[in-house]
């Protein structure tokens, strides 16, 4: 079992710094979520991990071996990205053949099964498929390739709700059959919230959170009630967002609550869901930056 270490990765494109000293560890057989707003640096990070582009500084190691230009390490990874790197003239079946030739193996029975479920014609040329079917073909490869680290960058781009649901089911089934590490980068947080065990949140090129989902949710609260009571209770806490509707105010708090404070009867405390937490954490930082 290998562990993937991303060590102090920074990336500049000209004067624009896309990633700032990102360090993270990906353990085997775990499903991760990689969350970030548009332009946060998620795709750049995945491209660096899989050796598609070079970082300005830092390195990526698979246990003690550097991934850079290492065929053994690279063959343990597969990145399904928004970019279509397969030749448009190739038939889907030929693309699968090519993947098998490169990775040494390919789960053909599963590929046929998934092609049937998603209604993909293996004899169709890749270039003739719609955006959604481009994603589906790449997803089938991602689930059938014998790699230990599968990175899915916007995996459900262009997929309708039925196909998205089917994909999540198949992802879990493939994981159960052969556990491996999946990293899912998506904006549809609600849809993956129940799939992922651990999340990395990236904002403005920096790692904002690196935590198990359960722990993260356990430390996030929505405190609702009359405005004065809510303000009094949340004073001094890490309030990351606020919403008001008439006299009722909700303050979103990230961090530990003060156990010594008495919760007023008029105030209710609930945990946030992952999407709301993400929105308030990243919004909060942007508002702070603007001020």
């Amino acid at each position: 079992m290998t562990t993937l270490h991303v060590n102090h990765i920074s990336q500049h494109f000209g004067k624009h710094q896309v990633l700032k000293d990102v360090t993270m560890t990906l353990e085997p057989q775990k499903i991760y979520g990689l969350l970030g707003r548009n332009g946060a640096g998620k795709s750049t990070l995945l491209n660096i991990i899989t050796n598609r582009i070079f970082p300005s500084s830092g390195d990526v190691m698979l246990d003690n071996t550097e991934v850079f230009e290492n065929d053994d390490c690279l063959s343990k990874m597969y990145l399904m990205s928004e970019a279509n790197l397969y030749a448009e003239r190739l038939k889907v079946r030929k693309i699968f053949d090519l993947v098998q030739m490169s990775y040494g193996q390919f789960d053909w029975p599963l590929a046929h099964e998934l092609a049937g479920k998603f209604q993909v014609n293996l004899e169709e040329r890749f270039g003739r498929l719609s955006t959604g079917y481009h994603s589906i073909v790449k997803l089938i490869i991602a689930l059938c390739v014998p790699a230990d680290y599968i990175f899915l960058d916007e995996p459900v781009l262009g997929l309708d709700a039925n196909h998205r649901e089917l994909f999540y089911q198949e992802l879990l089934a493939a994981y159960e059959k052969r556990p491996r590490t999946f990293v899912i980068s998506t904006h549809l947080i609600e849809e993956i919230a129940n799939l992922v065990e651990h999340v990395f949140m990236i904002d403005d090129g920096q790692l904002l959170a690196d935590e198990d989902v359960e722990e993260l949710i356990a430390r996030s609260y929505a405190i609702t009630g009359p405005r004065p009571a809510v303000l009094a209770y949340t004073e001094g806490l890490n309030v990351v967002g606020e919403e008001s509707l008439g006299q009722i105010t909700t303050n979103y708090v990230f961090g530990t609550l003060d156990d010594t404070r008495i919760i007023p009867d008029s105030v209710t405390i609930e945990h946030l869901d992952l999407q709301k937490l993400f929105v308030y954490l990243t919004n909060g930082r942007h508002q702070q930056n603007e001020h």
Partner: protein
Amino acid sequence: MNTKSNRLAIYNFKNSLFHLGTTYIWFFAIVVIVPTLISLIVSSNLSGMTWSNFVSELLAVAIFYTIADCLFFNYNNFKLTIQNGISRRTAWLARVKGILLLSLPIVIVQGIDALVDHGSLLYAGLFGTPKGAEWGAALAFDFMNMLSLFATALAVGYGLALLSKRGKATVIIGVPIVGLILLVQLVKAMLKNQEAVANVLKAIIGYSDKTGMMNPLNISLFVLVWLVVMLLLSFFFSSKMKLRRD
């Protein structure tokens, strides 16, 4: 790495053969079928196309196709390989092996054509028609020249593949202009130092003033060094390949 690069080299070779086949279909349509039909309609005969011409033209198409392959398909090749967990080093090695595989039949056909139908060999043009055991050396000489030509195209192609669309357009427009200016300056400089330039060229081709003959060894060494330099250059450029944002 070798197994992977061998598998990939065979894939590249098959891919190139497919493209070459497509090129031949176009070639037949444009250069053979259409003129033949016109010739039949106008003069009702099929003169003009000889077997020797035909083989030479087929070889020329194969050589031009391989040069184009080396020049223009490097970025596509990179995209495909990096998507499939193959390092730049392995992809480059497979590309070189693939081109080597493609060059072999070209030089073999060229040799057979030269033997059977007195087709042209570069060696024969420079050093006279080979006799007996010289055939092996002549074929090796032509093969090395062909490889150095393809290696040069590969180095240029990998260099171009590093550029964005805008950068490529700038180079494609700018280089001929700058090249022309440099060429004019070079010619001027050569005219001023005719003797020195002539001596350098004679040394490269191994020309002897006494015998009026060229020494194949000199030019072979020069071509070999050129081949190695171009391969190293193409390797260097290939190691800098990255996914472009354009």
